Every structure is written in structure tokens, then in C-alpha cells.
């Protein structure tokens, strides 16, 4: 069990390192919902940089597979219709709320941003309530 926690901590540290690099090299917040939104735009902010980040993000698990010989273990508890609803809420909600677990969580908390702290608290509370309701 402690080894699983250590692995989680190491994985989290790499996520944080990626955010630190993106800030120090490109001067930007590694917020996935924002990068996705900008990557989808056909003009203005739709710089190739966002697409490169997204491409790298998808290559990450492939690198894991190459290194460890297996995909990370995945278990779905939600059916496809539920996932479709969830995906829609996540896409719309993160845009309306200007960020997700990465932008508000990893980057915002690290900058002690009051907006991000409020957002993280809010999505943790509604996430906990949703799971509590659905799992009973």
C-alpha cells in the first residue's frame, strides 16, 4: 500500500514538473481545459503550441507502456451514456469555470490563487456529493 502512495506521489511530481517547465519555458499555465480550448480554435489563440502539448499528453501513456510493458490499469464504473453526460459536464463546466484539476488544482494552488482555491473547493464538494449520491 505505501508503495502505491509513493508511486502516486512520484507521478504527481512529474505532473507538477511538467507544469513548472511549461511556465518557465513558455510562460504559460499548464491547464488542460484551456489548452484544449485554445487548440480547438482555428484563429487567434489557436497556436500550434497547444496542439503540440496535446500531442505530447497522448504520447505520455504510450511512453509508460514502452517503459513498463503494460498500460496503466483502468477500471470504469460508469456506462457509456453516463460517460457521455459526464464528459459534456466536464467540458462545459471547466470552460465556464476557467479551469480544471490542472489549471486550478496543480497550477492555481501552487500560486496561492484565491480564485483557484475557491474553484478547487467547489469542484471537490460537488464531486464528493455526486459520488456519495451515485454510490449508495
Amino acid at each position, binding site marked *: 500500500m505505501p508503495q502505491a502512495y509513493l508511486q502516486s506521489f512520484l*507521478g504527481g511530481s512529474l505532473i507538477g*514538473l511538467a507544469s513548472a517547465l511549461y511556465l518557465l519555458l513558455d510562460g504559460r499555465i499548464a491547464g488542460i481545459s484551456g489548452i484544449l480550448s485554445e487548440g480547438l480554435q482555428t484563429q487567434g489563440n489557436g497556436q500550434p503550441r497547444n496542439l503540440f502539448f496535446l500531442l*505530447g499528453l497522448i504520447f505520455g501513456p504510450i511512453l509508460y507502456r514502452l517503459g513498463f510493458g503494460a498500460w496503466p490499469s483502468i477500471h470504469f464504473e460508469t456506462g457509456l451514456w453516463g460517460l457521455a453526460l459526464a464528459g459534456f459536464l466536464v467540458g462545459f463546466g471547466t470552460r465556464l469555470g476557467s479551469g480544471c484539476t490542472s489549471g486550478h488544482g496543480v497550477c492555481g494552488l501552487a500560486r496561492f490563487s484565491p480564485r483557484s482555491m475557491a474553484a478547487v473547493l467547489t469542484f471537490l464538494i460537488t464531486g464528493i456529493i455526486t459520488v456519495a449520491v451515485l454510490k449508495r
Partner: protein
Amino acid sequence: MTKDRSQNFAALAAGVLFGFGLSLSGMLDPARVRGFLDIFGRFDPSLAFVLAGAVLMSHIGYVVSRRLRHPLFEETYHLPKKRKIDWPLLTGAAIFGAGWGIGGICPGPALAGLALGILPFYVFTGAMVTGVLLHDHWPKHLLPTLKRKPTSEGSAAESLSR
């Protein structure tokens, strides 16, 4: 030109590291994410360790950034300059949290999960992209209270010289 190329390469490298970290940490597993949110049931604390490691490293990066006049490949930092805690922020976060609780997936794992080539990730991510596009392209006059800024400023990241 060279600056753009460096920026793109840095973005690619950061993306790979991010996706690898997600894979190593267990964040790609929706059941573990929902276990973390299940504090009244079978609580799985491991994601707290993910967040701790991530915020710690990210904070170190932030502290270093304050000592550098500008990023290595860019003239200025692009950080959110909005400070106010407003209704779009809280409403959006609440909606996101509900979706996160239902599926156990947030945007990073949704996109990284596409690499695994299994249907559930494609369904989730397809719906997520639909939600993003609907928000970003929704006619503003139909949602006056939610969309207060023109699209050109829609991005959270705005230039801030420090």
C-alpha cells in the same frame, strides 16, 4: 521562427511528461478517482499524494519563475489576471465537479486516455470536446450572464507583466 520552434518543443516535452505522470500516478483510472471522492464510502487517499507531489513541484516552478524576468522562450508570462471570485467560476467548477464525480475523469486523463484506444475514453472525450465547443461558440446574447467577455479574450491565460 526559432522562438516558436522552441516553444512548440517545450510544449511537446511538457505534454509528454504530464501524460507520463498521469499514467504513473493512477489518475487515468476512473475507479481510483471516484474512490478518492468517495469519502463517505470506500475512500482511496492515493490521489491526495498525486496532488501533493504536483502542487509541490508546480510551486517550486512558480517560485523560480518569480526570479526570472521572463520565460526562456517567451518575452512575458501569460498568467490569469482575474482576481475576483465570481458566479461563472463557481457555477462552472460545480458543474465540472458533478461530471468528474459521475465519470471519474477530468480533462488531462480524458485526453491522455485516448492513447489506450478503448471506447469509453473516446465517448467521454468526444462529449467533453462538445461541451468545450458549445461553451466557446455559444451565441453570447443567449447567455448574457454567463458569457461576459468577447471570444478573443475567452482564454484564461492573459498577458501579465511582472
